């Protein structure tokens, strides 16, 4: 018993004593490493760590140190507290990570108050960027992807009537709104919509309702993980012919694991994405190889958000000549342009948001494997107002 007590005190002391090393740039990453969003957090951290491994941990003579903190899922009070602790206890120079919007919104308050540079590596809701003038985003925004998809659906795919089915939560409603805006602006007609329960992944009833109305296109937005697989199967079971009805959505529904789970039932599903590991470019090939060598699996858009986020930190530090205060870093970050495994990207100097290519893909069988094949590319898409 006494031993446990001593160990406990030692642990506490070790945690309380401040870390040494003067010339270090500390990057605090607030991500989910446990709970249902653990996978996304891990991928993001892996992407960031891979960048540091490839490019060395020294920038402008200073050492880069990543401090990862687990927020455990959607937990804004904890995210805020972790951000506060990273700033007051660990003296981080950059707040990064944020796989989930509510956490990003909470931490943005800290970034604003402490004037700390904040790199949002995932949270995709449009308004997040406005919460702190020290924030940049290296992932994507929901409208950037879905409004583009809506426009493409009407103009290029001949879809005049669409049915929308989205999960009844923030990102789902956001995506539906963005898609409808783009779709209707091009002259399309949304014939019906349904909000699906977030928790229970049995889609039969919802798919049947969609089928009853016989639309030309169905727009879907569901969280990643187990659901896309179940959804694809529901489509097959209810007999939706993907050649006649275009099923469209955001990239989560055809990610690697969803495709493996759906099998051939996925052929023909159309998705919009800013990154896929099958994207053909020299840089991406090298990135995917290195990622596999290091972590034994393929990267996804969370990984590339982390990877590009680290690049942004390095580039901003160099441009700011090693100055680490919030004002210098954000001024340096605005307008940065570079080549990412996903394609060319840049940071909009006005909105601090990301500008990148948006790809429309369709699931096809290539060499016996199911992959998302790019069928259209929209260059340098900004976040639509």
């Amino acid at each position, binding site marked *: 018993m006494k031993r446990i007590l001593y160990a406990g005190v030692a642990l506490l002391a070790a*945690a309380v004593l401040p870390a040494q090393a003067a010339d270090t740039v500390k990057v605090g990453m607030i991500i989910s490493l*446990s709970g249902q969003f653990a996978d996304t957090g891990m991928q993001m951290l892996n992407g960031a760590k891979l960048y540091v491994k490839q490019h060395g941990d020294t920038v402008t003579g200073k050492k880069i140190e990543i401090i990862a903190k687990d927020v455990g899922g959607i937990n804004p009070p904890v995210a805020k507290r972790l951000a506060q602790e990273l700033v007051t206890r660990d003296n981080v120079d950059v707040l990064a990570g944020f796989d989930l919007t509510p956490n990003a919104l909470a931490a943005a308050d800290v970034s604003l108050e402490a004037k700390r540079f904040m790199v949002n590596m995932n949270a995709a809701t449009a308004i997040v960027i406005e919460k702190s003038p020290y924030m940049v985003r290296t992932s994507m925004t929901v409208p950037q992807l879905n409004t583009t998809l809506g426009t493409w659906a009407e103009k290029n795919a001949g879809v005049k009537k669409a049915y929308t089915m989205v999960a009844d939560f923030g990102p789902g409603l956001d995506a539906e709104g963005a898609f409808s805006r783009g779709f209707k602006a091009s002259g399309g007609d949304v014939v019906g919509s349904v909000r699906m329960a*977030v928790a229970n992944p049995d889609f039969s009833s919802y798919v049947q309702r969609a089928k009853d109305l016989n639309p030309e296109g169905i727009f879907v937005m569901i969280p990643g993980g187990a659901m896309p697989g179940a959804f694809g199967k529901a489509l097959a079971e209810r007999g939706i012919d993907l050649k006649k009805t275009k099923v469209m959505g955001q990239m989560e529904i055809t990610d690697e694991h969803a495709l493996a789970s759906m099998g051939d039932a996925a052929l023909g599903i159309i998705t919009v994405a800013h990154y896929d590991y099958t994207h053909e470019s020299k840089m991406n090939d090298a990135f995917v190889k290195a990622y596999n060598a290091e972590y034994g699996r393929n990267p996804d858009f969370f990984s590339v958000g982390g990877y590009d986020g680290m690049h942004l930190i390095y580039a901003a530090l160099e441009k700011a000549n090693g100055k680490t205060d919030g004002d210098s870093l954000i001024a340096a970050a605005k307008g940065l342009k570079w080549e990412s495994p996903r394609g060319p990207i840049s940071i909009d100097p006005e909105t601090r948001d990301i500008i990148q290519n948006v790809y429309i893909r369709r699931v096809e069988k290539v060499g016996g494997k199911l992959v998302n094949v790019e069928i259209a590319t929209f260059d340098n898409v900004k976040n639509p107002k």
Partner: protein
Amino acid sequence: MALTQNLQSPQLYLQSLSRWRPAEIAFWLATLLPFVLAPNYLSLASQIAIAALFALSLDLILGYAGIVSLGHAAFFGIGAYSAGLISRFGWGEPLTGLLLSTLAAGLVGYATSFIIARFRHLALIMLTLGFGLLLAELANSAGWLTGGIDGLQGIHTWRLLGLFNFGLFGTTAYAYALAVLFFVFLGTRRLIHSPFGLALRGIRENWVRMSAIGAPNRAHIRTIYTIAAALAGIAGALLAQTTETVSLDSLGFERSAEVLVMLVLGGAGRLYGGLVGATIFMVARDQFSGIAPEYWYFWIGILLIFVVILLPNGVLGGLPNLIARWRRP
């Protein structure tokens, strides 16, 4: 034991219980230590104080009245959202906001207590779970009011007593949360060491016998349930005010399960159990996630298993036994 000495008079028995023991005084003095020893940890400390208050409110119904609730976070969430909404609509004064949120949570508690008091055992547990889950769904659907999954935005808490700003270091937050915790604790202590408190324990031990001697079981259950709901609401409101964020997780099943674990860890029915359990759990979680961010819950699981095996009835329940065994030559 105090009981055998004071069998003649229930008043004397209650009085002997309500005397302040040195261990208690030491405990409360220790809560002031973080201001001096760990000024960088005050945000964590304030969240521990809030969790302790929440666990205390659960102890009232679980430890003293024997109602196992898997949905207690509903009241925590109601308190949090009320405080958040009041602030969002322009009134950010913390103390009055706290009072109003407590009222809101208490009212909902009162309303549901009528149903709760009529059921027992597994049906009761599942009903509390069901109500909690329903409320969480409702909050998700009413996104126009609650902000849905993104949470409530635009909360700004004004200065406490017009003087103290809630800053980055969490000093005001901890002082505020600790003070509220202490006052609520005093009230709860008084309540438990009263005839009403004794009646509750009687109801928990033997429902039938209590009715036989004429105790109004259902009315007592309703009363304590309402009080517990109000106290949970205070904790929720404190969290909303000190962190200026509220989101759906404050109502969710995870939070109900978490507070249950904290209380049982510390030892239910012992007044300090919730406080001790909350402290151990939150400190362990914080430290474990610092050391092993990817697998901290593995260590929490091991901790829980060890506590149950070595310290049945929670830390406060098993500690006297453990100490006695140590002392035996």
